[in-house]
């Protein structure tokens, strides 16, 4: 009973971080299964699983689960909670109790999402939930309302968590020697992400609350008959939605910087200040480009021209980061072939590819042809499945000894990497061809000419499933073999490596002093 209470009432950042990891892995498996069902439907001719509405419900749920219950909990809740106090040399977060609230709010949030699919017809609108399709006349029943409440709860969870993280990073540094210009890059990434969350999530909350009242209280925010405008919803949603994608990737940037520093055996990452300025500018610029998701709704040509130009400028700081990571790796003698570095190298290459397709899409002229086609799906899966997911695997393999005091099997880890690499590329590269030839997204079936690439894409998802199963085996093997870690082979510069592993329940009990 007391063990149960330990996990329900925890105010310990390591415990809460572990809870987030377990939750995120479980949710990731659910999201992965949904993606598998999607590819199953598209991998065979004609209708297979059911009707188009079920397909749309799967597509919607897949996105929500992966974004709100896998990537965000793992990268912010998991890595953030574990690493922020350890890297700062403090005992815990600024608000340990509210930390627990942020985690536990995700449980009802996820339940609401699953309930929305289980009750009534399910939400078949896509994760963007645009009206009028999401309005009461086309989605009568409680599914959309349940999904809206799911978003409300996960939004509150993220806002409170971000307040906690940002306050900890700004205020809790007990030693003056960890000044802001000596802050580890992962903490800078988390800080920028937290600011984005605090400012963009409330706008989503407002948008979905207006949708809720449109559905249930006869308001006309998005109903033209009452003087409203469906495009207003899109503006509000994407004002959140665009910073959201930077929220998804920025912690990954931090993780990659740390791993490159550790494995290139240099004292510093190439150009610390540039990395910081790049992340801050990506965060800020991310607020003024939202309408590049709306190029086909009928906006003025000058508006489209502005958003094209603004979107392309974000490529500059992002490119700066990529070049700096390459420069950090360049010239180091013993660049290992260790598992985290493999993931990082995969990240650099594949995230760049995804960014380049993003540049293509940023042009409003070409986006008019490619919008809502598989080209867009390929683009964001490159930056997500191969961007942040690779960074998450990299960080997980790198910091596993810190979180558990054990080591993961290196050989199996490399097999897992190569299998995943082939799997995800097989899945998403052909989708570029599908998009360029015009196959629309969120379609349960397609003409025969699109069959080949769809089949290859589905075979790739099969392979990804096997590699995830291998990951579960790797996890199990580590806990069963119980290889306690004594030393690290890489250049463990930051504070999270300083305690003896496994780190005890109370760490950094006394304030630290840093000599540099």
């Amino acid at each position: 009973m007391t063990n149960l209470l330990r996990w329900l009432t925890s105010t310990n950042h390591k415990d809460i971080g572990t809870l987030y990891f377990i939750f995120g892995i479980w949710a990731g498996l659910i999201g992965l299964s949904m993606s598998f069902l999607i590819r199953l439907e598209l991998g065979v001719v004609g209708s297979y699983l059911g009707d188009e509405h079920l397909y749309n419900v799967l597509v919607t749920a897949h996105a929500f689960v992966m974004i709100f219950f896998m990537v965000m909990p793992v990268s912010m809740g998991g890595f953030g909670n574990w690493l922020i106090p350890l890297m700062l040399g403090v005992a815990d977060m600024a608000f340990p109790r509210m930390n627990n609230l942020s985690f536990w709010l995700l449980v009802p949030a996820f339940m609401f999402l699953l309930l929305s699919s289980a009750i009534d017809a399910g939400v078949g609108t896509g994760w963007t939930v645009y009206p009028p399709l999401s309005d009461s006349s086309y989605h009568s029943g409680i599914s959309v309302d349940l999904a809206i409440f799911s978003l409300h709860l996960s939004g509150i969870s993220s806002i409170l968590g971000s307040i906690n993280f940002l306050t900890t990073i700004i205020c809790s540094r007990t030693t003056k020697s960890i000044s802001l210009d000596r802050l580890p890059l992962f903490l800078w990434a988390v800080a920028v992400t937290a600011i984005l969350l605090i400012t963009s999530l409330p706008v989503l909350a407002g948008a979905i609350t207006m949708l809720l009242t449109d559905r249930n209280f006869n308001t006309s925010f998005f109903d033209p008959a009452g003087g409203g405008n469906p495009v207003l919803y899109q503006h509000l949603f994407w004002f959140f939605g665009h910073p959201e994608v930077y929220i998804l990737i920025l912690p990954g940037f931090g993780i990659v910087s740390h791993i490159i520093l550790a494995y290139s055996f240099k004292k510093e990452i190439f150009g610390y200040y540039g990395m910081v300025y790049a992340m801050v500018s990506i965060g800020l610029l991310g607020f003024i480009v939202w309408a590049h998701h709306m190029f086909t709704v009928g906006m003025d040509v000058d508006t489209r021209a502005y958003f094209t130009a603004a979107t392309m400028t974000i490529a500059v700081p992002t490119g700066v980061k990529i070049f700096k990571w390459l420069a950090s790796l360049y010239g180091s003698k013993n660049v290992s072939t260790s598992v985290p570095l493999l993931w990082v190298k995969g990240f650099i290459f594949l995230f760049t590819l995804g960014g380049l397709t993003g540049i293509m899409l940023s042009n409003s002229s070409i986006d008019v042809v490619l919008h809502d086609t598989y080209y867009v799906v390929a683009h964001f899966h490159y930056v997500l499945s191969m961007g942040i997911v690779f960074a998450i695997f990299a960080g997980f393999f790198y910091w596993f000894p810190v979180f558990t005091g054990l080591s993961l099997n290196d050989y199996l880890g490399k097999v897992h990497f190569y299998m995943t690499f082939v799997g995800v590329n097989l899945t998403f590269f052909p989708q570029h061809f599908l998009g360029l030839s015009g196959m629309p997204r969120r379609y349960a079936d397609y003409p025969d000419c699109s069959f080949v690439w769809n089949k290859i894409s589905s075979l790739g998802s099969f392979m990804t499933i096997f590699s995830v199963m291998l990951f579960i085996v790797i996890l199990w093997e580590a806990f069963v073999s119980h290889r306690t870690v004594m030393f690290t082979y890489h250049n463990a510069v930051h504070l999270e490596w300083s305690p003896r592993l496994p780190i005890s329940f109370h760490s950094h009990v006394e304030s630290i002093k840093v000599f540099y």
Partner: protein
Amino acid sequence: LSPFMAVQSSFWPFLVSLVLFSLMSNLVLWFHLKLSFTMVLFPGLLLVTTSFLWWKDLNRESMIGYHTHKLEVSLRVAMLLFILSEVFFFVSFFWAFYDASLSPTIDVGMMWPPKGIVTLSVYSVPLLNTIILLTSGITVTWAHHSIMNNYFNKSVFSLGITVVLGVYFLFMQWVEYNEAQFSIADGVYGSTFFMATGFHGMHVMVGTIFLFYVLLNLVDCKLLYNHHFSFEAAAWYWHFVDVVWLILFISIYWWGS
């Protein structure tokens, strides 16, 4: 050792998430399946109770001296960030209002206010409410200075007036809502009006309760002249609510009529 305390394990976060689950599922059932509203009020009340139990713990930790200066700074930063998130919440509703009113569609008669809407008379109750809130801003500042200068009676009096003004505002808004000749279902005018002023009213209610809670603590001599962050947090929140009202008044009540 360390300027930060290690907070004890607490059941409240888990309880809050359970209660929110119950509240929101009952809300959905009230929307669609005719569940009675009492079933929504009950978890709502439970939420308020759990929150107060949580804040009671926070209060107790402060009383036994765990709130060092560094922790107080963290609380300030956190309150400011929270108010920042609330600002952006209202941004979405003002965005909706300006989107609908700057270029009104044919469905509302290409005019704002829309054809057929009888707007509230700006210079009666809305203006009174503006004066009420501005005055309450003055009285809360008076209360702050009284606290800092250790004047017990003046601080109780001025904070008390602030709370009374908050209640007065809410009462006048309630009267206005009853007497308005349009409802939330009256097109986009009603939607934006009641959504923006409604959420503002909810925030005034929260702010008034917060100020009242601080008043109770003040009367119990729990605030020090140099350490009274709960008062400052309530005052910041109150000023935020006041500023939102001013923007509401200028945009929706005055310009929008």
